[in-house]
């Protein structure tokens, strides 16, 4: 190999290694934050509905503090290289989407839009070639939301709240119908989506138990 070439190549390789280290530090930070939030939100399963707002209020500031990290990432990643490095933080980002969507559901009962997630995480439109929330990560976060809601349906009943499972059922079925419209390829997302049917079955069984005992009004059946 030409000695000059050899030197250049070695320099390029070294630079990438350094960058990787720096990004990793940020990701470790982000990871700690999302783990903390997940830990706190785990309490929704034993919190009566009227105390939920207080719980959420304790999580929101942590979620907003993720903006510092997205901003650091945006300054680290070279232009156009979003897709080169994103695998390093995908997992944490998906958890952040999950947290944001769970907070939204608990506060308003609605589905958080992708644009709103990006806004909360302080991700700017003009960074899109460095840091962004791709559709795929958003969808992963929503699947985690459904996993969590099927557990919440069970625990709500335990806490004597019989309307919640029905609300969850309607919300989740609507979301599932949305997912069914997508042409997913045979990857992790598709497998996770396929597994949603177990969550739906569980929720349906809770609704069944509640209806059978006439503990809550029947969900309205919509003709096709």
């Amino acid at each position, binding site marked *: *190999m*030409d000695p000059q*070439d*050899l030197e*250049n*190549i*070695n320099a*390029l*390789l070294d630079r*990438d*290694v350094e960058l990787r280290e720096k990004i990793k530090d940020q990701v470790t930070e982000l990871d700690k934050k999302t783990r903390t939030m997940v830990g706190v939100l785990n309490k929704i399963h034993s919190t009566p509905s009227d105390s939920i707002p207080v719980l959420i209020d304790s999580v929101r500031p942590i979620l907003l503090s993720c903006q510092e990290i997205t901003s650091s990432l945006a300054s680290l990643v070279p232009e*156009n*290289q*979003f*897709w*080169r490095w994103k695998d390093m933080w995908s997992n944490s980002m998906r958890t952040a989407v999950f947290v944001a969507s769970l907070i939204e559901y608990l506060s308003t009962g609605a*589905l958080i*839009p*992708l644009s709103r997630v990006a806004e909360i995480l302080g991700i700017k439109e003009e960074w*899109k*070639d460095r840091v962004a929330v791709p*559709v*795929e990560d958003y*969808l992963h976060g929503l699947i985690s939301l459904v996993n969590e809601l099927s557990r919440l349906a069970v625990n709500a009943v335990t806490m004597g709240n019989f309307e919640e499972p029905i609300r969850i059922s309607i919300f989740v079925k*609507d*979301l599932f*119908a*949305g*997912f069914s*419209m*997508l*042409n*997913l*390829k045979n990857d992790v997302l598709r497998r996770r989506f396929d597994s949603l049917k177990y969550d739906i079955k569980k929720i349906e069984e809770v609704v069944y138990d509640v209806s059978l005992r006439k503990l809550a009004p029947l969900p309205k059946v919509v003709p096709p």
Partner: protein
Amino acid sequence: MASPLIQLFDHFREDLDDYNDRRERLIKASRDVTNISKKTIFLLHRIVMEESTDDHALAKHAAMRAREKLHEVQDMYAGMKHELEGDRFWRHQRQVSPGLQEYIEALSFAHYLDHGNLITFEQVEETLRDSNGVLYFPLVVSDYLLGLSDLTGELMRFAISGIARRGGRAKANQVCAFVRSCKSDFERMTPYIRELSKKQAITTQSLEKIEDAAYAIAVRGSEYDLPQDMLDDIVTQTIST
């Protein structure tokens, strides 16, 4: 009228379909690149095995034919340019890499036959520019190195299949030295690129095979007091009778 959620997902569908379709196109294109490159490599092997009185000219001719064929790949890359603009290249690198590495393997093989040395990073880049000198997409060091690493296997085939030819013994010795220096140069880079470690192991095997072949010739020739060229002449003469 569709619900807001349905509208939202309608949008996602478009987005995902757009991505999946591009991905499919790139995979197919990459597979085509791989096929052309592999065929180019076969072509090179085939031409250099043809009957000839001037092996040097034959190698030059083979390299020329190969470069012609590889223009097809370059044209494909020119066509893919818009699919790989901006951050799209990195999004689809995994789809592009296999074909690109095979292309670099073929290109570097032709280059070696022509010049007897290793194609440089810039020389590879030169083949991936449009008429304004703009790269179709960035060339990544790992693709460059992994493509070159595969070259050693082809050089092994070239050296061993050609060993029976006039001048094949000398050629085998040159290839042996060349592959050995590739192995040395790549060694320090293996911690950076995971797949390179595995390929180094294969390079080592190829190298040993060439060494064994070169050895067999050397040890056989050492019994005679004639230069290698004359020995080759004698052998050629025997077969032709």
